[in-house]
Each structure stands twice: as structure tokens, then as C-alpha cells.
């Protein structure tokens, strides 16, 4: 199982949890597993064919959009982080 860190903005959908568990050897499998276990959370992150535009998914610190997308591998005990996609820094 992989531990997925959930940002505050998505915790209501995760039943209040700061982190949830899911299984899968690729990002796609992981997200589909979340949709099955926690549909409210999964559907906020994944639309069935792609990661939703306002969410970033990081595997071991790397945004999967630049590291293979949904096919990016997820190793055993990887650190997976969900974050709102938002301009960083200050305005």
C-alpha cells in the first residue's frame, strides 16, 4: 500500500483524513484505486481519463505531469502528495 498525503482543501472528501492508503504500481492504478475506495476524493482528483487541472500529483517529490503522467511508476513505499495546482510564490 502507498500512503497518499491529502491537502486540507481535500480532507472533507477524505473523511477528514490527512493521509489515505491506496495500491497500484502506476499513478493511474493508484488513482483508480482511490476512486473505488473514496469516490468523493478520487473524483476530485481524477476525471476517469486524466488528472484534473487544479490538482497536482507528486510521486517522491516529482510532479507526475513531467514524469510520465498517469503511466508514471509508483514504487513500493513511495511518497505520494496531492496539492492544489496554484501559482507559487508571492504576488
Amino acid at each position, binding site marked *: 500500500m502507498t500512503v497518499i*498525503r491529502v*491537502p*486540507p*482543501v*481535500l480532507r472533507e472528501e477524505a473523511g477528514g483524513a*490527512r*493521509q489515505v492508503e491506496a495500491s497500484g504500481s502506476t499513478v493511474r492504478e493508484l488513482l483508480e484505486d482511490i476512486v473505488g475506495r473514496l469516490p468523493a476524493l478520487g473524483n*476530485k482528483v481524477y476525471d476517469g481519463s486524466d488528472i*484534473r*487541472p*487544479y*490538482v497536482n500529483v*507528486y510521486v517522491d*517529490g*516529482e*510532479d507526475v*505531469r*513531467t*514524469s510520465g503522467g498517469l503511466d508514471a511508476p509508483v514504487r513500493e513505499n513511495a511518497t505520494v*502528495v496531492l*496539492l*492544489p*495546482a*496554484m*501559482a*507559487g*510564490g*508571492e*504576488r
Partner: protein
Amino acid sequence: MPGARGTALAPATRVADSLLDLIGNTPLVALHRLSPPGRTIYAKLEGQNPTGSIKDRVALSMVEAAELEPGQELLEPTSGNTGISLALVAKLRGHRLTCVMPANATPERRLLLELYGAAIVDSPANEGSNGAVRLAQELAAADGRYVMLFQYANEANPRAHYEGTGAEIVRDLPRVDALVAGLGTGGTLMGTGARVREANPDVVVAAAEPLPGDPVMGLRSLEDGYVPPILDVSKLDRKLLVSNAESVAAVRALLDREGIFAGVSSGAVVHVARKIAEELPHGSAVVAVLADGGWKYVSAEFWRAADVEESMERTLWW
């Protein structure tokens, strides 16, 4: 004393006609003490721009592109480096500038902008920077004298980096294997990355993303998030999340080992630059764009804090 550095008169240097002429042309310095063996990280010191940050380039480019008519004034939602840079450019170009910022922005930021001559309009503190953007948009829509530059969607932002930052790197280094910069508006990475890639087609363009703080983590809904229109993630080869502890460790190492006093976003950039340099073959050159100096952050707790994560966040997020 013969042979001592700095005693021989350097070749003739330019005499600037205006401080605006001193924006850009920042130096690159090799970080020999922080580079992995056999590779070299070069820091581009954007803190050496006139107001101490890379935003001087963006401000000048956006104001020039705006071509203000008589009677028009500049408006921007900002409490950060962009506001200070715009205030300098506005002052020297004879324009008025109004900055919209959350009412709880730090007193230092407010004072600095006022000293540079900007007018300040407060937006509701509880709405954060989204509230500042919304109020600025309302002001601009209601009053025709305001021209809102909005760096997140202004093509003059990446263009400043294509024509300046990137062109300078290409001029100064015969080969660049990786380019690392922080991800804010996306302007630095888009513009600099495009120019450096033209001369170095195999360059790895990498974004260093600090773990977001309260304003992002405190969003009430995902839809309140914002992806800047000028940012095209498909143009990035890597995008790496950097923890606060990693950023602070690197920014402290920059000062301790290289003598460079930089802002904390530069810590994230150097952390990623070291990671990527280690992955590249011997002989590789990595450019790390250090967006600003550390001077505006001297009151931040993290410089001395033992527990960095706690000192940088009111809440431990995970």
C-alpha cells in the same frame, strides 16, 4: 598589493544614464563548494538587480509594453517583489502606481512600497492574494485610468526572460545541460527556458516548487486555485516539490559555504540544482536562477529556527 583581487583597475565599465539601464546583465558565479564532484552549478544572481530581485526585469518589460497614455495609472495586486520593482519603474518613468494587497501584509512590505512611492489599497485579509486580485480587477473595471499589468497573464513577463535572462545565460556559457528556476508566475521558466533551449536543445528545464504555505493550503476549494495563463507545464522537463526544510537547508548552505545571501526560494532552486547535477554526467553545467537576495527576509524566523517546518507554517500540514 600586486596580485590581490580587486586592486587592479578593472576594464572600463559603463556609466548608466538611469537606474533602469542597470536592470539585467546579472552575473553568473560558479558554486564550486555546493556542486557535486565533476559538475558545476552556476548561480545567476538576480538579487543584483536595482531593487534586489528578478522582478525588475518583468516590471520594466510590462510597463514598456503597456505604453501608458497621459492620465493612465498602473495598478497591480502585489505585496511582494513585483510591487517594489514596479514602484521603481513607475517612479522613474513618471507613472503613478497603486498596489492592492491583503490588509494583513507585513509592515515591512507595506513600508517598502510606500517609500518607493506606491499608493496602497487594502483588500480583505481573510481573502488572501485571491482577494487582492479580485479587488484590483474590480478597480480596473470601474475606473478607466487604471491599467492592470497582471504578471500572471502578461506575455511581457516571459518575454523579459527570453530577451534578457535567457539570452544572457546563452551569451555567458558555451553549454548549459540544465536550467533550474523557481515556479511562481512561470515567467522565468517559460522565457529563460525557451531561449536556453534554442542554443542547447537537450537542456533539462526544471522547476523548483516550494511546498506551498498557508495561502494555498488554506484554499476553501480547489477551484480557488489558479494556474497562470503564461505557464505551459508541457514546456518543463522536470517539476520538483521541495520541502521547507530542504529549502532552508540549501539557502543556509548558500550563505555558509558560498557567501551568497539569498531569499528562501533560491534555497529550493539550489536544492533541485544539486539533485539534477548529481544525475547528470561529469562535465555538466547547471544554471540555477536565484530570484532575490535575502535582505527582505531578515526578520523571518527560519534563519535560526531548529524546527524549520514549524517556523514556516502555522500548521503542520501532514
